[in-house]
Structure formats: C-alpha cells, structure tokens
C-alpha cells in the first residue's frame, strides 16, 4: 500500500517533482508545455478575480497530463493560456520552447472543446479538413488525410453526413479527428467528453487512448471527472480554487497507453489512484492540513 502511495508535490515544485522516478528529464528536448509562475487576473465590475495564481507546470513531450479541480480553479483558463486564446497577467509559458503565440501560428497543437464546434453547413469530412484547408493543404491531400482520420475514429461511413445527423459522441469524435488532422505533437482538450453520457464517454476515452498511442502526442486534458483523469493520464494535476493553484501532482502510471484497456477500470491500482486524486481534491477544502499523511 505504502509503495503505491502517490508522491506529493507542492505548487511551486510541481514542475520538477512531477517527473516520475526512473526517467531522467532530457535537458535538450524541449518540453511540450512549460508554465512558469503564471498568474491570470480578470477584472470585473464586482472587483478582481484571480483565476490563476503563480502556477508552475511542465508537460513532457508525449505525456498525457490531466488538469482537474473544482469549478473556478482556472483549469480551463490555463488551457486557454497554453493555446494562446488568452494572455497571462504575469509569468511565462512556452510550447515546445516557443511562446504560445508562435506555437499557435506554427500550428504546433490541435485543440478540442466541450462543444464539438463543428461547422453545421459542412459535411463531416470537410469539417475534419478545416485545419488543413486553413493552412493551405491541397484538395487531394486533404481528402486523403480526412478519410484516414475518419477511419481512425470509426466514422468512415459518415464522411458525407452533416454534423446534425450525428449523435453527440460521434460529433465529439469528429472534433477529435479534426484536432489530429495536422499530426500535432500536442493536443489541448477542454472537457471534450463533458457533455456525453457515461457509456459513450468510456468508449471515446478508450478510443482517445488508442489514438494517443498511435500518434505519440502530448495531451493536456481538462476534466472534472476523477476516473476519467486517472484512466487517461500519466499524471493528474489537482488544482484548488480561489485563487486557482496547483495543489498536487498525482502520478498515475497505469502502464503504456497502448496496453491500457477497459479492464484497467476494474483494477486495484486504478481504484488506488482514484482515491489518491480524490483525497488530493478534498485536501483543498482545508479540512486536512497540507502535508499530513492521511493513510
């Protein structure tokens, strides 16, 4: 039991302490995402809201990291900062060693949101082609890639359908195919399965693991589901609200993504990690003093 206890990391040391033991970080390879001392404040009529306060985080290339926490903990804000959809009030971010703006202009990442956000007047296939079309890929290459991606997410038969003819889960798979269109080495996902029912959700989770194993992309995944975070991730970043901070980083290590199947959900190690994340989340209530071993 003790041997499987998660290593705990404080907010300030999250970046380095999050590196699992045994794998020495390669100083030459740029991390997929580096977040250093990032603060984001929003000013509203009722005063100033600190969405993120002095957050540090490192996501290595090929690593799957989930951000989890109560609503208002700034997990979506952090993802938007990485995607350069928003700018930090203080601190620095880099994506593959470059500022997020440059990474965005270089098309270094793919992105998916809670809403599938498909264009309703375009067929499934042309929706998947969108990023390629925006970046000037030729018609033939676009079409070939879209066909390949739709086969990958199991929707080849629906290529010429319109989004409204698909179920919510299918639409979300189209959105994931679109995010993968340019073979990005980083995937940013903001509660992509939040609106799906439980069964569909488990199905697309397994599918995402498979796709991720095939592409080797790093993933930053925002979620409010503990089992989802544990099932998918290499590390789970637990955040606390008001102000949004990294509370703990829980390593999961349920094995290689390609070996992980639905059986993992019934594994003791899985439940152990779920409990670890849950305890980390509840520690944020302030009922348990920080750093106290609760086992």
């Amino acid at each position, binding site marked *: 039991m003790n041997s499987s206890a998660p290593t705990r990391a404080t907010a300030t040391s999250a970046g380095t302490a999050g590196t699992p033991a045994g794998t020495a970080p390669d100083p030459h390879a740029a991390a997929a995402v580096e977040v250093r001392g990032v603060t984001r404040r929003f000013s509203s009529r009722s005063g100033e809201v600190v969405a993120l306060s002095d957050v540090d985080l490192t996501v290595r290339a090929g690593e799957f990291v989930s951000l989890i926490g109560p609503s208002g903990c700034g997990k979506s804000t952090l993802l*938007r900062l990485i995607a350069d959809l928003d700018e930090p009030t203080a601190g620095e971010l880099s994506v593959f060693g470059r500022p997020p703006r440059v990474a965005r202009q270089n098309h270094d990442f793919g992105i998916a949101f809670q809403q599938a956000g498909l264009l309703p007047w375009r067929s499934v296939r042309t929706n998947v082609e969108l990023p390629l079309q*925006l970046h000037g890929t030729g018609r033939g290459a676009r079409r070939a890639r879209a066909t390949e991606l739709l086969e990958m997410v199991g929707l080849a038969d629906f290529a010429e359908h319109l989004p409204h003819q698909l179920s919510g889960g299918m639409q979300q798979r189209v959105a994931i195919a679109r995010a993968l269109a340019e073979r990005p080495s980083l995937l940013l996902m903001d509660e992509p399965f939040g609106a799906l029912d439980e069964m569909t959700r488990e199905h697309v989770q397994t599918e995402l693991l498979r796709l991720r194993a095939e592409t080797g992309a790093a993933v930053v995944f925002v979620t409010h589901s503990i089992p989802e975070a544990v099932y998918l991730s290499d590390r789970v970043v637990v955040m606390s609200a008001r102000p949004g901070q990294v509370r703990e980083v829980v390593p999961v290590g349920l094995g290689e993504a390609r070996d992980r199947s639905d059986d993992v959900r019934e594994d003791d190690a899985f439940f152990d990690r779920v409990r670890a994340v849950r305890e980390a989340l509840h520690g944020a209530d302030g009922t348990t003093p920080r750093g106290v071993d609760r086992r």
Partner: protein
Amino acid sequence: MTRSATTTWRRAEVVLAPVLLGLLALALWETAVVVLELRPFVVPSPTSIGAELTGNAGIIATAALSTALNAWWGLVIGVVVALVAAAVSAAVRTIDEMSAPLAAAAAVVPIVALAPVLYTMFGASTQTARVAVAAIVSFVPVYVNTLRGLRTVAPVHRDLLRAYAATRRQATLTVTLPGALPFFFSGLRVATSLAVISALVAEYFGGPVDGLGKAITSAVSSSNYPLAWAYVVGAVVVGLLFFCGSSGLERAVLHRRSQR
C-alpha cells in the same frame, strides 16, 4: 397497395387537398353570389372575374409586368445596398452605431406614405419614385437580418479559428459568411413580399398610368368591379412568383452547400 403506390398517393394528397379546398371555396362563393343576389360592387362572382381575366389577359399581363419590374429593380437595388451597408457596419463598429437609429427609423416609417413626396421629387411621369419606394422597403429587413447574421459567430468557432491561426479573410469566408447566409435569406423572404406590395401600393398615390395599382383604382372608379378583381388576381400571381423565386433560391443555395 404497394409501398410506392402509397407514397405516390400521399404526394398526390399534398397537392390535391388544397386544390380541392380552393375549388370548394370558389363553388361556395359562386353559390352565395347567385343565391343571395349579391351586387357586383359588394362582391362579383368568380365566373365573372374569370371572364374578365380571360378577356383582358393581355392588358392585365402588361400591367402586372410593369408593377413586377418596379418591384424587381427596387428589390435588386435595396438588397445590394443592404448587403454593402451590412458588410460595412459589421466591419466598422462606429458606422454600425451611427446607422442603428436610422435603420430602426426606416423600419417603423411607412415608406409607401412617402410616395407622393417622391413623385414630386423624381417627377410624376417616371417609375423612379415607385422603384425608390420598393428599394427602401426591401433594404430594411435585408440589412437588419444580414447584420445580425454577420455578428452571430459562436464563441467556440471564434476560439477554433484563432487556435488554428486563421487570417481575418479565412475567418470571414469559412465561418462568418456561411453563418450569416440563413439570416440573409430570411431577410430576403420578407423583402420580396414587401417589394411587390409597396411597388403596387405606391401606384395609388400618383405617377404614370401603367401598373396593377393604377389599373385597380381606375377599374373601380369606372364601376367595373369584376375587372378590378381580375387585376387583383394578377397581383396575387406576381406576389406568388416573387415569393417562389426567393424561397426557391434559398432552398437551392442552402441545400447545395449542405451537399458539398
């Protein structure tokens, strides 16, 4: 009965039902006029209107064409100006803010009431005033709807285009314009009916002696009521053609793009 025969019958029903209802209404109307001995100035019988319609088909068509042309050019000018104005307002916020009260004013002022003023302005012997009325009337719904459509971009689409570093031009072509299209068409549908109505009603207030509106007033003043009703039938036909034209265009465009 086979399935295809059933569907054919269903389709026939869709057409037949309203046709039968219409014929029944005409028969009732005819009976009422004959039995109750209604005078023509109250309401003429469908057969007498039909007789006037066939007997004067040529002049009715000429009058209808004249009104239709005014409505058409008014519609074309109104729509083109509305699209340009909506594009400019969508791009430049200050212009939008300046023009918003004007658009609201144009929407509530009964433009047709301005016809007498416009006749003196452009001269009573030309069609210009009638075209102008139709143009102003069709401008308003197209402008208001198209501008709303151009402003309605879902936040998720805005984020998506930004994340993929789309240029302003790409964002306009891939999301803003296609998204505004249904809004434009609902404006156009309103504008087409209004263009015909306003072009016709403007004729009541003066101007040259051609057109359906003029023909209706002169037939009534010479107590030829069935002929006046025959001209009304002509107006209904023009209105229907315009309506079918715009909704046909809408269906063709929106259907075709969803097939891509």
